[in-house]
Structures are given as C-alpha cells and as structure tokens.
C-alpha cells in the first residue's frame, strides 16, 4: 500500500508579550528557556529517526506559534536541518516543499530574514491584524503599522515571494471605514496571501473578562451586522484585487493557497512537534503535553538516558510505539483519540465545507464507502432549500460569486415556507440526481449566506 504523505507542524510557544485576545498556547519567556525548548524540540524530532513515519514523504512544514520569529534564526535553521535528516528529505525535494513560518512585526531584521531563507523557509506569514495603530493598541499588540511595513519590506528584500498577511475584523473600536482602510493598505502591498479572521472572544483570555462586563471602555465591539458586512467587503475587495477566497477566512492569488492548511481541511496526515502540538496520523488524533515544565523535563531525561544508554528496555518499549505513531508513553502525557467512522464523516463535512471548493460525493464515497446523500441527505436538503448550501460543477464557480444571493439583505427575508418545503426538497434531490447523477463530478459547497452561518450548518453534520 502506498504510504500517505505527511505534513509537519512545529510549535514555538513563545511571544514577546501575550495579546489580550489570544487563547493559543504561548507565553513570554527568557533566553535560557528558549534554548532548553529548542534542545527538547530537536530531541523530539530525533525520536522519530528510523520510525515508520520518517519514511513518509514530507509534503509541507509549518512553524507556528506563538511567535517563531522571536527565536534566533540559527535555531530555526537547526530545527529544519534536523527534520531534513530525520525524514530523509533530499536536497532536490527540499526546494519543492512548502516551508512556512509565522512572524510578528518588530521581531526580525533584514539579516534575520536572509538567514531564514538560507535555513529553508520559503513562505512567511506576518501577523499584522490591523493597519490602524489605535486598534493594535487595544488588541495588546507590541507593534504599530510602521513596524509592520519595515518587517514586510525586510521580508520582501530578503527574497520571499510567498507571503501571507493576517488581518482581523470585528475588533474593538473598529468601523467599516477603518477596516476597509486596513484592507486597502494591505492590498497595496500585494502579498500573495491574505488571511482575514474575525475576532472571537475566547474564554480564558483578558478580552473575555473585559467584555463579559460590558467593556465599552475598551472600545465597543462592532455589532453582528457590521461584522457580517466586514466579511462581505473583504470578499468583494479582495476579489477585485485578484485574490480568490479558497476558505472561509483565507484568500490567495491563484496557485498561492497555503498547502499546509489545506492538509488540515482535507484531513491529510500531519505530525505536530513541540509543546501541545496536535497530530492526525492514521485516523487517530494526538495532542502533546501542554505543560512547558513537564515537556522540557521529559525530553531532558530522555536525552540523558540516551547518553548513558542505561535503560535499554524502556527505550525499546518506547520505540515500538514511536515507530508507528507520535511519541506516546506514560511519562509523556499525550492524549489520543481514535476517530470513529462517524467522527471522520463529520470532520470530512465540516472541514471540507470550510473550503470554497466544498466536498464531493465521489471523495466521500472513496473515503467511507457510503453515499453522501444516504448519510447526510436530510441535512443537505434542508440547507439546500434554505439557500445555504449549493451544488456546483467544476466549470461554474457558483460559490465564489454572489450569484446565489446578491442581495446582502437576503438573510433577512430568508424563511421556510412549510407548505413548500417538501416539494422543494424533492425537487432538489431530483434535480441533483438528474443533473449530477452519481458518476458526474459535482461538489457541495457553502453559499455566501452559508459562509456567514457556517457554524450552524456544521452542527447538523455532527
């Protein structure tokens, strides 16, 4: 059987300062901790040497955080070299795989960027979030817009031709006007890729505490309708500037879609390395130890064992696991969750539908041996009748345009007519069968209205 490709994710859990809205696993730390962490991470990568996973073809690498760019460039280069050797990546292949790294403005110089490039990085993702200094301050970011510009120029000057800029909508104090301005400024810089998220106030963040009690003093949050308009504007403006939306929050010039993230949405196998990193390998999801002290001491101990070579037995036990799956033993707290067929079908739907290309019944059948309409027929027909899902063939790009609901107010008038639902559903099914058959290529995807309420749609596939 042909081995599945593998993507690698390296987590760098450090930031100069934690942002007020951030719920990712990250914190600020000192240089000694950085060093210890890099040693541990090198050890973790090395633990896969000779394993079955290391035989797989590496498709993409992503170094995320936190702020990976806070580490010295040499550290990044060292990590990549380790990966290259453990996973048997030839020089020829090295240049062809997508190797991304996240970067925050104000943490790099032109020289550092050059070193990243030499180390193997070929895609940079910069966390701008907003081009308005006022908004950046409210977010608790350490940079202003000018700092970002400097960083962006350094990245370009160092020769990076695949750059993403992260933007955020629905920020405290943000208006349609200021958001549009941020978008325009970014478009003017012409990055290859733009991610536009809306701020989600997550539990456990300072923002959550702040806005639970009103929080107007910290800048009012845009209302739902404004947020929705921001989403629509993003799509319109970026489409006008030549960026295609390929996922709910991601836009790219043709051919510059982030391959690594597509692996997540297409449920390809990926191995997460580092603190709290997640993996999906052969239908099992894993999660690494999340406590930094535990993580560091575990890898320190293993390093020493290796040097002394005292506990052969333990090592051999370990290796029988680590040859097939991510490191998993009683000392290293890795959670694991074996996915059932239902889990996988649900994931297939809610991850696949995030992409504008949607999901195909053929692929569904190939994965699960079941007919998509037999499993999810009711849900699909319900959302088809509500105009939230649509079938499209490969030629007509229904989902990329607003062809379905050009009226931005359409959701207001959206309603189900009880008398007609049944016949409509039957019609939808019949037309689907007639037009698409089961052999013909056809894909199910979100309409623009569907994107706005995608969560509520995904719930039905669980």
């Amino acid at each position, binding site marked *: 059987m042909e081995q599945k490709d593998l993507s690698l994710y390296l987590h760098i859990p450090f930031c100069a300062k934690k942002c007020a809205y951030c719920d990712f696993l990250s914190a600020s730390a000192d240089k000694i901790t950085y060093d210890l962490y890099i040693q541990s991470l090198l050890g973790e990568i090395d633990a896969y040497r000779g394993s079955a996973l290391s035989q797989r073809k590496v498709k993409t690498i992503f170094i995320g955080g936190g702020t990976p760019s806070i580490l010295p460039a040499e550290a990044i280069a060292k990590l990549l070299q380790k990966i290259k050797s453990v996973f048997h990546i030839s020089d020829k292949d090295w240049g062809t795989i997508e190797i991304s790294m996240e970067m925050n403005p104000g943490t790099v110089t032109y020289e550092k960027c050059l070193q990243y490039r030499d180390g193997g990085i070929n895609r940079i993702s910069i966390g701008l979030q907003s081009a308005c200094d006022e908004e950046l301050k409210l977010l608790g970011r350490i940079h202003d817009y000018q700092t970002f510009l400097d960083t962006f120029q350094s990245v370009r000057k160092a020769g990076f031709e695949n750059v993403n800029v992260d933007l955020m909508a629905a920020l405290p104090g943000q208006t349609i006007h200021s958001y549009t301005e941020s978008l325009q400024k970014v478009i003017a810089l012409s990055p290859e890729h733009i991610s536009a998220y*809306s701020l989600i106030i997550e539990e456990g963040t300072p923002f959550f505490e702040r806005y639970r009690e009103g929080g107007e003093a910290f800048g009012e949050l845009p209302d739902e309708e404004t947020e929705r308009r921001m989403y629509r504007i993003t799509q319109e403006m970026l489409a006008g500037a030549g960026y295609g939306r390929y996922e709910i929050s991601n836009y790219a010039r043709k051919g510059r879609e982030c391959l690594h*993230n597509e692996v*997540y949405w297409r449920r390809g196998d990926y191995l997460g390395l580092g603190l709290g990193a997640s993996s999906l390998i052969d239908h099992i999801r894993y999660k690494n130890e999340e406590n930094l002290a535990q993580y560091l001491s575990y890898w320190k101990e293993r390093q020493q064992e290796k040097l002394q070579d005292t506990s052969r037995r333990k090592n051999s036990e370990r290796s029988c696991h680590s040859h097939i799956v991510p490191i998993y033993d009683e000392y290293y707290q890795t959670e694991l969750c074996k996915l059932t067929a239902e889990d996988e079908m649900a994931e297939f739907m809610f991850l696949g539908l995030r992409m504008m290309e949607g999901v195909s019944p053929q692929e569904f059948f190939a994965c699960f041996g079941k007919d998509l309409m037999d499993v999810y027929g009711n849900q699909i027909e319900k959302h088809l009748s509500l105009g939230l899902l649509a079938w499209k063939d490969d030629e007509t790009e229904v989902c990329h345009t607003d062809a379905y609901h050009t009226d931005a107010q359409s959701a*207001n008038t959206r*309603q*189900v007519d009880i008398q007609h639902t049944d016949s409509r559903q039957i019609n939808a099914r019949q037309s689907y069968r007639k037009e698409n058959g089961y052999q013909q290529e056809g894909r199910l995807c979100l309409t623009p209205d569907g994107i706005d*309420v995608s*969560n509520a749609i995904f*719930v039905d596939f*669980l």
Partner: protein
Amino acid sequence: MSTIDQSKIRNFCIVAHIDHGKSTLADRIIEMTGLLTEREMQAQVLDNMDLERERGITIKAQTVRTVYKAKDGEEYIFNLIDTPGHVDFNYEVSRSLAACDGAILVVDAAQGIEAQTLANVYLALDHNLDVFPVINKIDLPSADPERVKEEIEDVIGIEAHDAPLISAKNGIGIEDVLEAVVQKIPAPTGDPNAPLAALIFDSVYDSYKGVIVFCRIKEGCVKRGTQILMMATGAKADVVEVGYFGAGQFIPCEELSAGMVGYITASIKNVRDTMVGDTVTDAQNPCSEPLPGYKKVNSMVYCGMYPADGAKYPELRDALEKLQLNDAALHYEPETSIALGFGFRCGFLGLLHLEIIQERLEREYNLDLVTTAPGVVYKVYKTNGEMIELTNPSNLPDFSEIDHMEEPIVSAEIMVTTEFIGSIMELCQERRGVYLGMEYMEETRALIKYDLPLNEIIYDFFDALKSRSRGYASFDYELKGYQTAELVKLDILVNREEVDALSFIVHKDSAYERGRKMCEKLKEEIPRHLFEIPIQAAVGGKIVARETIKAMRKDVLAKCYGGDITRKKKLLEKQKEGKKRMRQIGNVEIPQKAFMSVLKLDDKK
C-alpha cells in the same frame, strides 16, 4: 420496651406563619431533649429534603420522637410533628394535625400575627387541638412581645399573657416551651384494649421495606404479626415491623398502642393500597367504623408535565405514583400533546406546590421535565346543555358549541402595612378583583379582602404582590366558587404552526396583552434559526399579536487549523447538545423552558 404510660405522651405540632421560626424551634426542642448531640445537629433537622433546606421552607410534615425529663422528675415522650407553613400545603398541615393533641403557635415578636398564623390556628382549632402561643425572635431589635401578646388575645382569642418569650435561634427560653408542652398539651386518650383504629397521616416508599405507613394509633394496639386491614381500600397485610421516628431514621419497637404515633411496615407492595386518611384496623378484630378521614382536596391548578426525553414516560409515571403516595393533593392523569408527546395533566393546590413537585421530580427522580403553562379548572357549558370541566385548554370545544364558561373565583385576604394599600388595591383591580372590604388589624396594618379570579393569581400574582409591597404583604386565599366570565383560548403559532402546549385560556380583555407578552417572551426564548420565524398569538383564528425572530446572520468559526480541530469540534458538539434538549415543532427548535415562559410574563413596573 415496657408499656408506655399514656399520660406521659405528648403529641403536638408547631404551627406558624412562614418564616416565624417554626423549624428552628423544632431543632432546638430536639437538641434540648438530647436526641442528637450538637455535632450531629444539622440546622433544621426536620427539613430533610434538600429542597426544603435550600428554600428554607417545610414542604413535608416530618415527625420525630424525643424524651424530655420534666421539672416534675418524670420522663415524657414527645412526638413532634413539624408542619409546612405555606398556604399551598394546608392539606399537609391538616393531616399532621389529625395526629396531634395540641399545638404550639409560634408568633414572630416583631411581625406579630400574619395571614397564615390565623389560617393555621383556625385549622388547629378545627381539629380540636389545644393551642398555646410562644413569642419568638425576642432578641430582634424591633421585637415588641407585649404588643404581640395583646394581638394574640384580641385577634385569635387565646390566652397569651404567660406565653414563653423565646429566641429559637439563640436557644433562649426553650426550657419554658418544653414545660408548657407538658402542662398545656393534653395526654392522648384511647383504650389500648379496644379494637385497633389507626389513622394514616402519611406514608413513604422505601425500596427495601415497601410502603411505610405513618399513623396515629387512636384505639387498640398493633405489633409484628398483626394482620391489618385498610378500611377504605380493603387491602390486607401482615405487619412486619412497627416503630417510632428517630431524627431522620426509623426505630423499631415492640408495639404501638393507643395514643402513640409511629410507623407500620407490612410488605405492602402496591402504593395505592395505603391511602392517606384511611383507617388501619385489625383484620381479625376490626373496629366498628373508620375514623373520620380528611376532606378530599381538589386541585386548583393544572398543568401538563412531559418527560424531556419521551422514552422516560414510564419513569415519570412511576415517580408521580410514588410522590402521590405521600402527597395526596397531587393528581395526575395521562394526556398527549402534539408538540410534547406523552405526558400527564397534573393537578396541584397552588403554584408553589406545582414548583415543588416539579423540582422533586427533577431532583429526586432525575427526570428532565417540560411543563406547560399552568391553568385552572373551567366549567364549559355547551349549547347542548352539557357541562364539561376543562383542565386542558386543548380540549376546549369549538367556539360555536359553547354557550358560556365559568371560572373559579377565590376569596383572597391580603395583609399589608398601610402605606402599600394603594398599590396593592391597584394590583387587585388590574387582576379583575372585586373589592369586598378592609379591616385595620392595628394602626399600621390592614387586611384587604378581594374576590379574585384564580387564573389571575396563578401566574405571577405573588411576585407582583411582594414587589409592590417591598416584601411586606402576605396573602391567603380559598376557593369561593364559580362565576361566568368571558373567556377565550389564546393560541400560539410558531412559524405558522399551532403549538398546542402553548395554548391557554384567558379573559377576553387581557387576551391581546397576554398574547403580546407571550410573543415577546418567546422571541427571547427561542434562539435564532437559519430562517426567519414568525411568532403569532391568535384568538379564534384571528391574529392578535406578532413577533418575528430574525434569521441568524452570523455564526462562523474564524480559524480552524490543525490544533483547533478537536477543540472546535467540541464546541460544535456542545452546540448540538443544546439543540438536542429542544423540542422540534415543524422546523423550529423550541427550548423546553419556553413552555414555562408564560409564567414569567411579569409586568416590571
């Protein structure tokens, strides 16, 4: 145990207005008579339902036996029966009183006589009990025991000059109360050699012992092996165990004889065989006629109760059966709703009773319930001369078949400090009350009398009363009779579909207002869907109010990368779990609490 001298037994209860310190006094008595050490003493021993402790009220009558060594050097057996104070539980009180020979009346030294003080005293006097007063909370700064004594003598007409002045909370004067029990409460009478006659005043179901019957032995005696006969149901059983009540436990003994209060277990399997109020006698040597039981109580308030999970219907039925065993005021019969499936139409004494039953079902029986809007019993006179008693609005005949309808009216007495008379009268007028008169109890307090339609007070009247009197008004009512009224059925349509479980009967004049509030409330309760949902209120097919739940516009997970997937999936699962707990009506998911929302149409004035 040797035979107990009847003259050394005291069977008594404590009656009081709610919050006047009845349960606290009971605790002190138990403590003082050494039944429990202080360490074992948990505040309010007799309120052993979690619910009672939390709400600070007594729902079920509880009984406990203690031994008191009096100043005369003799040991007395006290059977103390704690009783509920709320008007909804009058029936419970009445049952307990039948087991007693006397009562302690607890009156708050600051508040004096309240509506339920009177109601409970009259109930006790009705049962021929000797009542003596105790003035509690004398340590309060606002205490005025002399005034309260005077009030007791004037209003109730019982002697109060030597009433013990106590603070149950701080243990002051408890000894005096115990002595007064010995001296003022008569010893029971009854011939231990006569044929057995015992009054069932309560019963509980125990999974090991079966039905445990609580009774007061009026005549004769009962012991292990006696074959007993329940006179009303005709059921026979052999006694397995008799005993009396420790604090929170059953203590077996040799026999129970005339004058004693205790329990009997007799491998009785069917809970229906032991009716509260029935007389237990010796099957071999029966008494000539049963003891007078209690008058049957009629439910005043009805509502539908449905299991949230339809598969739990049999469990709900069993739970109701068991609750009814020691709550004869609870009535139920099966019914079916299009929206809610199989359930029961249940009858209650009042709204608090309803709430308590609902909470007990949920807590003690682990059932998730959907409860429909409570209603009263209407009399519907049809054009063909037939009369039906309507407890479920869905069964209202077609408009054209109805000649007229009658609704229950209650006589209400509201005790209030004079400054709030105006606002309370205004409230009563709004609720279609008919003013009967007012009596000044003393300078600052008055008793207002109104006739009020019951359906106007079962929703939020009590809350409104409290809020308009800053908590000072107290309220008591009793059913007066039926009166013709212009009543209509208000239907609620969700997404153009009538939801039977949301229909209710309302006076024609308030139909519009109620309908409007109901729509507003449902708009709050029903989450936004992916499509627009009209909510309409209709009377006889005519729409009288409408609200619209706008379609959901925005619900996006902004990011979803490798590390987020498991977490985001959990979020979606949580969202789905929430949906599962809703009722599907057509395409609309309605949260279960929406069915109770009619209860909370409170006017925030």
